[in-house]
């Protein structure tokens, strides 16, 4: 399982990347961490004629903490996010999601942008992006800058809204101001670190009495793309999180999914898993606030 032959270029700046993508189109692929791309090339599922290495471009690996959002460059390594405690306080969802992302070895190379661009329907960072309503920044030589909200970024399994001449540049992750923000991410996989059969995420802002003031929920692995449920989440606002409320929301969310079937899990089972996991994360989030 060796990759088919290709040419390799280490880009010296972002314009260089975009020039090459404009010239080669679908024949060129940027490579960042390579944790998804290289296995695909080894299995010859991907056969780009040209690989453009973007790992050493500082402009793509910056972390910018703004007043209401954190901007992560496309090639920020997953491992660096894990280690950044200042980021955890602002983006607890990323801290919680990263615990489930692959293994130490893959997080040492894997990048945030790469995970989103790869758009695996069971991946954790794409789910976090839709739940938090992140914004993706892309750039191409001809089109310049383009922004896409996460809700429109994932088009289908392994298909993200990145044009063949575009490079993903950065992602803005909204920060929830104030106290009482709790976040729970749970998933079920055959082994820890494997692809999730189903995953659930919630971020809630609970006041001192445990009443929900803001909510965002989502399910992964239960459809062709990660799903957020802003309208269902709105039903949590103004209420304490109790078992009936959590079960009701989770049931409605999982009923709205169209999970696929494979060797590991049939669609009914995935839908059921999604239901159980979302109920669980909602209840755990409610309890976290009580404990805090």
């Amino acid at each position, binding site marked *: 399982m060796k990759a088919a032959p290709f040419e390799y270029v280490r880009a010296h700046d972002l314009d260089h990347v975009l020039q090459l993508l404009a010239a080669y189109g679908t024949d060129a692929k940027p490579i960042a961490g390579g944790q998804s791309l290289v296995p695909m*090339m080894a299995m010859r599922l991907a056969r780009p004629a040209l690989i453009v290495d973007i790992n050493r471009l500082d402009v793509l690996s910056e972390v910018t903490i703004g007043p209401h959002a954190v901007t992560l460059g496309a090639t920020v390594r997953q491992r660096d996010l894990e280690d950044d405690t200042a980021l955890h306080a602002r983006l607890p969802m990323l801290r919680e999601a990263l615990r489930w992302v692959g293994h130490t070895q893959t997080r*040492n190379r894997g990048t945030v942008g790469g995970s989103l661009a790869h758009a695996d329907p069971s991946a954790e960072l794409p789910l976090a992006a839709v739940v938090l309503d992140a914004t993706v920044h892309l750039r191409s030589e001809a089109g310049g800058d383009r922004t896409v909200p996460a809700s429109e970024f994932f088009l289908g399994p392994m298909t993200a809204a990145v044009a063949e001449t575009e490079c993903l540049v950065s992602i803005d992750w909204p920060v929830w101001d104030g106290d009482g923000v709790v976040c729970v991410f749970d998933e079920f996989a055959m082994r820890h670190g494997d692809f999730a059969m189903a995953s659930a995420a919630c971020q809630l802002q609970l006041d001192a009495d445990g009443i929900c003031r803001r909510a965002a929920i989502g399910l992964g692995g239960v459809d062709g793309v990660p799903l957020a449920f802003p309208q269902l989440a709105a039903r949590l606002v103004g209420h304490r999180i109790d078992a009936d409320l959590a079960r009701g929301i989770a049931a409605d969310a999982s009923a709205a999914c169209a999970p696929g079937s494979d060797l590991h899990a049939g669609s009914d089972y995935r839908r059921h898993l999604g239901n159980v996991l979302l109920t669980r994360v909602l209840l755990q989030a409610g309890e976290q606030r009580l404990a805090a």
Partner: protein
Amino acid sequence: MAPALITVEITVNGKLRSAAVEPRTTLVDFLRDSLGLTGTHVGCEHGICGACSVLLEGDPIRSCCMFAVQADGMAVTTVEGLAPERGRLSKIQDAFCETHALQCGYCTSGMLIACHALVEHTPQPDEAQIRDAIGGNLCRCTGYQQIVDAVKLGTQPGYTVRADPVKRAATPENTVVPGASNG
């Protein structure tokens, strides 16, 4: 027509090594085929099994998921570079022998890389931390318990490498050593 070869220079186990490779040559194939460092193993070749684990700038990575050209100018440590000096084992390596943490040996180099990296950051890891550190490495022989035990044992304060490993292998207790008396 094959693409032109690219000369890569990578510091491997402290020495600058160089070879001309195709762009598609993975880091693991460069280490094994270009440099003859066959301690790193190729297992699944798609990023699952961990047999190919090496340290890149001190961090464990899957060397089958990186092209050698990407590592140009960087520093790699393989299993051959873990021992403190030639002919001696590291504490973790020695503990692997003590607890029978290897049978066929295929996962072992990757396991040692993962365990060495763990102990660099966390000198006295608990069981959960050890299992997490080796979570990206598959073993078909041991069931993992002896590997966990090896790390616990080798990180105990005062653990000393138990024996000359060459002598240990060459003279098991139940063979007759030429010249020794038999009765």
